Each structure stands twice: as C-alpha cells, then as structure tokens.
C-alpha cells in the first residue's frame, strides 16, 4: 500500500511541471498586452510602458519568464499580484472559502443524490423513479448560472431566506445557498449513477442469497445493496471535484463569494500571469491528491481491488 501511494505521489511531479508549463504558456500566449490595457483609453507614453514591462519581466522571452517563475516557486515565492498582495496570501485567503463551499456542496449532493437514487432504484419504474428522472433531467440541462440567478432572486431578494450574496468572511450560513446551487450540477449525476448501480446490484446473487437467508429489507438495503452500489459513485467524486471547480467560478461570481474561482477569473481578466499560474498549480495539486484519496477509498470499499495489487 505504501509503495502504491509513493508511486502515485511521484507521478504527480511530471504532471505538475507539465501543467504549469502549459498554463504559463497559455497565459503568455494570450493575445493583448496587459500593460497596454492598464491605461484605459489613454495611450501610455512609450517610456512608461517600457518601465512597466521590465518590472513584470514582460520584456523577457517566454522561456526566461517561465523559469523565473519556477525558480520563485521553489523558493516558496509565488510572486505578488498587481495590487501588491503576495499570491501565497491570496491563496491562503481564498482556498479555505472555496473548500468550505465545496464541502457543503459535496455534502448536499451526496445526501440528496444517494438517497433519491437509492429509493428510485429500489422502486424502479414507480412514480418516484419517474419524477426523480424528470427532475434530474431538468437540472442537468439547465445551465448553472440560470439556476443560480433564479435561486438568488427567489430565495434571496423575494423571500429573503438567504443573504443575496456572501458577506465578509464568508460565514457558513451565507454559503448555504451557493452550495445548494453548486450541488445541483452533480446531484443529478449522482442520483442517476446510484439508481442504475442499485438496480444492477439488486439483481446480483449475493443479494438474492441474503434475501433467501431471511435477512430483513432493513439490513439488505444498506449493507448489501447500498455499500456495493457506492463504488461507481465514489469514483465519480474524483471527476466531480473538477466539475465543482468549474462550477465554483460561475457560482462564486454570482454570489460574490471571495473564493478561488472568482479570484482566478479576475486574475485572468487582468492578465496577472503569476496569480493565474499559481492558482492553477495548487488546483492541479489538490486534484491529484483527491484522486489519490479516492483511489484509496475505492480499495477500502472493494477488497478485490486491494488484494489484486
């Protein structure tokens, strides 16, 4: 097991180098001069332009800039944003917020998705199953920003149940609504995954055996059916994390959540290369770790995988 973990961690190094290079290249190759954009309609004097380019190393060839950046990272220096704040500080500020948002969202989608999927699967073809199908289809097909705006208007402005946007410090209760919205992306996927998996598991020999031994439904459903149906759901969670990150950019913008997604988007708009690359690097790192954790969980859930190594 330890060797397996180590191998997975070592694999992360080339992945990290590769992604930072690609991201850096993409930011660099983005058309337009971020310095020329700093002046609005005013055309900056050439001497001033030159000074500023030099300051941000924009006068150097791409590869030099990349290695300057990489060297900084090894020294733990992720650079400074245009507004003079160290990127590490921005990271420390925004990641916990997004993490809390993601935890809430995952919690909602797991609870709702698995419960509904399980009931639908057990009562396959019934009214509950049919309505769950319709609801999940709607949620899958409606873009998240539409859901977000409707939720914000109905529950925030009209009914006043939640704050319309997230207040300073992003308290948990303010994050509820954005998390619920964010959860809708994957809730439908999880409920449908669970449903089909439950149906498949229900027809397996061991379930029939359990039933013929005289075990109660109360025992068979959670222990025999649910546990074995969760394997595909858990693997999906790893992919889901990436989906959540994308969704968070939109949701955080609409609910003004001071998290990673919103900050990253603004950094891209302003062409703040170091901020963008550092953020993405950390995201990739987290993505790798989560995938690792999921793979390990997988082994816990299904002993056959553990022993096959």
């Amino acid at each position, binding site marked *: 097991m330890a060797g397996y973990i180590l191998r997975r961690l070592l694999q992360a190094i080339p992945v990290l180098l590769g992604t930072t290079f690609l991201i850096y290249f993409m930011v660099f190759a*983005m*058309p*337009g*001069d*971020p310095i*020329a*954009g*700093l*002046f*609005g*309609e*005013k*055309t*900056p*004097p*050439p*001497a*001033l*332009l030159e*000074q*500023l380019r030099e*300051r941000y190393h924009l006068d150097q060839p791409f590869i030099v800039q990349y290695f300057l950046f990489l060297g900084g990272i090894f020294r733990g220096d992720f650079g400074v944003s*245009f*507004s*003079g*704040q160290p990127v590490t*500080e*921005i990271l420390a*500020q*925004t990641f916990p917020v997004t993490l809390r948002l993601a935890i809430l969202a995952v919690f909602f989608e797991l609870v709702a998705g698995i419960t509904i999927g399980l009931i639908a699967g057990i009562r396959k073809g019934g009214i509950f199953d049919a309505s769950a199908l319709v609801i999940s289809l709607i949620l899958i097909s409606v*873009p998240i*920003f*539409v859901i977000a*705006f*409707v939720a*914000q*208007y109905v529950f*925030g*402005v*009209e009914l*006043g149940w939640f*704050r*319309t*946007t997230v207040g*300073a*410090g992003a308290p948990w209760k303010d994050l509820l609504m954005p998390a619920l919205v964010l959860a809708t992306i994957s809730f439908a996927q999880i409920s449908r995954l669970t449903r089909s998996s439950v149906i498949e598991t229900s027809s397996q020999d061991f379930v029939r055996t359990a039933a013929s031994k005289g075990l109660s439904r109360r025992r068979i459903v959670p222990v025999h059916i649910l546990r074995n149906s969760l394997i595909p759901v858990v693997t999906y969670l790893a992919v889901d994390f990436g989906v959540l990150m994308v969704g968070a950019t*939109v949701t*955080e*913008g*609409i*609910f*003004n959540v*001071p998290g990673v997604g*919103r*900050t990253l*988007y*603004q950094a891209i*708009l*302003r*062409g703040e290369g170091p901020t963008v690359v550092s953020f993405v690097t950390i995201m990739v790192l987290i993505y790798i770790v989560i995938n690792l954790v999921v793979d390990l969980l997988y082994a816990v859930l299904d002993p056959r995988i553990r022993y096959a190594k």
Partner: protein
Amino acid sequence: MRIKRIGVAAVALAAASALTLAGCSSDSPAPSAGGDTGAIITTNGTEPQNPLIPTNTNEVGGGKIIDQIFAGLIYYDADGKPINDVAESIESEDNQHFTIKIKPDLEFTNGDPVDAASFVDAWNYGAALDNAHLSSYFFEDIEGFSWDENVEEMSGLEVVDDTTFTVALKQPTADFALRLGYSAFYPLPASAWDDIEAFGQNPIGNGPYMLDGEGAWKHNEKISLVVNPDYDGGRKAANGGLDIIFYASQEASYSDLEGGNLDVVDEIPSSAVESYEDTFGERAVNQASALFQSFTVPDRLAHFAGEEGKLRRAAISMAIDREEITEVIFGGTRTPASDFTSPIIAGWTDELEGEEVLEFNPEEAKKLWAEADAISPWEGSFQIAYNADGDHQDWVDAVSNQLKNNLGIEASGVPSPTFKEVRETITNRTIQTAFRSGWQADYPGLFNYLGPLYGTNAGSNDGDYSNPEVDKLLKEGQSTSDADEQNAKFQAAQEILLKDLPAIPLWYQNVNGAWSEQVENVEYGWNSVPLYFQVTKAE
C-alpha cells in the same frame, strides 16, 4: 483617465438577459427624518487593481477609495465646480507660474503635518520615471519632467515655506488649477517614505475618511472606512463611515441592493437597465455623466484621407440614428452626443456650428458618400473594432446595420476577445479598421476632452489626427485666464472637429445608480461616483 473595470459578468450577463425577471413593485420614498450620523453606509466597489498610492491609482475601484481617504488642494462639487479643500489659494498671473498656499495646521491621520513638502514630495515621487506610476503623465506639463531619464526632483516645483509652494509649467496651461482635484495631485505624509509598499496596503491620508485600523483593506472582500475626526474641509462626513464591498459582477451588487444588503450602488447591470427605474422610483438616478463615446476612423485607413475622408466620415455620421440606438439598445441610458465633450462640463453647448452632421439624415449621407465615390470609388467593407469583454457588440452591430442600410455598403464589427488586445493594436498602430473609443475626463474641463485626444502628437491621439488650426485654438484657450474666452476657443476648436470628424461622436453615457430605503441625501458627483460624505442613514 480613470479606467472602469469590467465585471466578471460575461456569462452572467447572457443569463440575466435571457431571464426576464419581473421587477418588484416600486416603493415610495422614505420619509425624511434626522439622519443617524454614526451609521455606516455600504456601497459597491471593486478590488483596487494597485496598491493605494494616489499617483499609481488610475482605475475606478481604487480611485473611489483614494478620493475618500485623501483631501487634495481642491475638490469638485456635484456639478464639477472646483472648491478649495486643503488649498487656501491657488494663484497665477500668466497661467504658467502658480503660487499655491495651503491652510495651516492641517494633519494626516497619523499626526504628520500636511505641508508644502507633502505635496511636492508626493508629486516628485509619482512623476519619476523609475517608479513607473500609472498616473505619472499628469505631471508632464511641469518644468523638469522627463520621459527620457529619471528625474528625482522636478525643477518646476519649489517649497517656499511650510504652507507655500510654487509650480512652474513648461507652457501656459490655464486649466492646470482645475486639474488639482484629481487624485494624482494628493499629498502624502512623511511617514509614507519609510516603506512605501507597506503604505500602499495601509494608506494614511488627510481626507474625510480613514481606514478602520491596520488591515482594513480585506483584499477581494471589502475595505472599511471610518470618519476622520480631524478633517475640516467641505466634505465633512454626515455618516459614521463607509464600507466599500468589492463585487466581481454588477449583477451581484444589484442583487444585494434589491435584497437590502447594500445602501448605494453606482452601477446597474444591463439586465436590469429596463426595470431599475420602475423598481426604485425616486431612489434611482439616470443622468448624463462625464463619459463620451465614439468610434475613431484614422486617416491612415484607405479612402479616409483628405477631402474624400472628410466626406465619408460625414456620411457615416449622418447615416447613424443615434436616438434610436440609445433608446432601443441602451434603454435610454445614453444621451445622443452633440459634441466631443459632455453636457455636465462647464462650457458645454449644443449650439456648435456644424453639429447637424451628428443628426440622422440618410439622404444627405448618401449624397456625401456618392461625392466621395466620385473622388475615388469605395471598395471593401467598413469595420469597427471593439472588445468583446465589454458591452459593445449590440451597438456596434446596430451601427453597422444602419451603415449597410443607409449607405448601401458592407459594414460589420470586428470583435477582439479582450480590451487589452484591442488596446495593444491601437497603441502600436497596427489596427487597420475603425475602432471604438471613449473618454471619461479626469477633471471637469472641456480641454481634457480635446487636448489629449485631438492635439497633434498628443498622448491619446490614437487616430493620429493633426490640424494646425485646432492646435492653435487649444493653445490659445490654455493661455487665457478668462473662462468664457477659454471656452469660446475650445468650442471653436470643436467646430473644426465637427468638419474633420477624427472620431465620430455617438453618445454620452449616463450614470445609472440606485439606493435603498435606509439612506437619504444621495447625490452623484460629476464623475458618476456618489458623494458618500453627505449620505445619511435614517434610523
């Protein structure tokens, strides 16, 4: 010029306009009551792009904060009229040499004195090439300023005594005194020089407000300002402080206003432009602002030089129905332009000779276009470049369609993904089409709309327009002290511009804002920013 940052809203906008959410019923204005002078007012803002140093802040997000925590020599009232703030007097006999006296015994919030040196040092620092401050060009006219080498101390600035300093300019510049209310000219306390970087994160000023302690600037979230008890100028706060919340999108701040989490906003998302005046009734504002919008047609484009170009520009201008576009596309939040400046600036008039070229007249347009064709037949397509990350596509398409219909030529918009991309091609002159342009003045004077944009070789003359007559009139205007005579010169310059049309004036942008029932006395300044100091909370 101060830059307005676009919000995150690219996706959000599309969504919001797709959703037609009914506006809620209009509320009656709150009854007048004695305001609570201790209450904190909340308002919308954006994360400052740069550290909060006046000479390095040239965008709206940071500018809004800087203007609250600093007091300059003068400030502008709601109509843009200059009023002395720190200055006791600003005098000049020749418009080139100024003697500035400041009020005695003023202090920054840390106790440092506000003296002549606090201005001179701050200006010298902001102007020095090595520091590369974004607003350094404001000091261009001062004697000793240079773009070629680093100048630590400009020869044109001299401290006479604690409360007096003199400014010598390179040439007569009558509106120099009017500029002094812009943030680039604010003073800095002596303690700023200990560690200017730390200062940029926790600035110390002398204005109506000050930061609510160290770390009051919570990056990406908000900045908390409280009243500076020592400030005694004309902007004394009638409330207890100001929380400026940073928003990524206009939709979010508008939702907060609707949801009662925010007191005053000065931005309305395009999705709510049609409905906000019904929603907020008396508590909504929609009035012309200092923002002029146009598109520039450089001489260097084929068929746009000389007499032929003049005819074609006039034809294009007359083929555009500005009334219709401002109504249909902008829901009445733009005002059709009748000159190159803005109606809120002193000296503006809608009676310039030749302004009929800005009126919709398709027959005349066709005729002029045909006359130009007689000089050299038109070929190809007329294109207008714009940045797709702003709200421009709709009007560019509308203008293109009107050109197609009324002139019978091919016309279209050329979107670039980002603002900085368009600016790059404009700055290095590689752009080969007409392009969107606009100008928001830094100070409320006619010259600011004309000199930097249409003077030969001027800083922002992106179309490389040059007309000796215009140059002469601008210079004459800057040499005379008499305000009426000055404005007459600038108007005469505009009458030439109306013939040459280096840029096709389109409309003036309005300031769109609204406020909640909890606040009163909301008024928007000449630069579209609410006059926060006079807002009171009814509680």
